[in-house]
């Protein structure tokens, strides 16, 4: 299985650069004929993962690298996000349970991991001490 397209996007770890990443992902997904909705979802997951790297793995230091590799296959897209920050704790919750009527307890955060798990088909996290590698896979519906 060889990819039909492959690109690596690298930014320094500031939230200013994340929109550049997001816009790129969105348009590349449109290019391979994803719907506007699906392209948004791909953009959202990459943005959430990169925001997490910047805020949590790098603790908002702005001089570190965040690398996003995108591999397009006929039947899937694989996103790989690499950082050299602190390792993500295992077993982070990624559910979003709340009562929409209960104003005081509406969630104001912790929605990023939930969204990623909701949208993506496969998720994998690997930390080898010097590098953290987060992989998200989305399967594509067969072309008509």
């Amino acid at each position, binding site marked *: 299985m060889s990819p039909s397209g492959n690109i690596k996007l690298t930014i320094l770890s500031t939230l200013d650069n994340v929109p550049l990443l997001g816009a790129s992902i969105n348009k590349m997904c449109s290019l391979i004929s994803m719907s506007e909705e699906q392209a948004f979802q791909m953009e959202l997951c990459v943005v959430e993962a990169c925001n997490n790297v910047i805020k949590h793995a790098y603790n908002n230091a702005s001089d570190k690298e965040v690398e996003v590799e995108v591999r397009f296959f006929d039947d899937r897209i694989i996103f790989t996000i690499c950082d050299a920050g602190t390792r993500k704790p295992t077993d982070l919750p990624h559910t979003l349970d709340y009562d929409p009527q209960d*104003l005081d307890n509406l969630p104001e955060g912790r929605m990023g991991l939930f*969204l990623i798990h909701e949208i993506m088909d496969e998720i994998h996290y690997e930390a080898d001490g010097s590098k953290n590698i987060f992989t998200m896979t989305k399967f594509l519906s067969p072309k008509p």
Partner: protein
Amino acid sequence: MNIETKKVQDVLVVKPAEKRLDAKVAVSFKEAMVEFINTGSTLIVLDLSGVDFVDSSGLGAIVSSLKVLGRKGDIVIAGVGTSVLQMFSLTRMDKVFKMFPTQEEALQALSR
């Protein structure tokens, strides 16, 4: 963050003048909303027709503003496109906020 506002009778219309309501601007957006609320606005239409991307931090800032306002008023959402709408439905926030296709319809609903 660039935000346009206008007062229509009792209602404050808040329209972010940027394409993205994301982690980069979430804090300053929330500060602006809290300022509107603290200076007496209790009925707010948040017009997102110029916004084509909202992430979980941006959405969190909207929810946060609603919690600051509490039960003494309401924030309703107007003009969301396909992408932003998904953000509300994926998180079920479309059950928390009343959503209207246009600013006008939102204003009408609030002045009833």
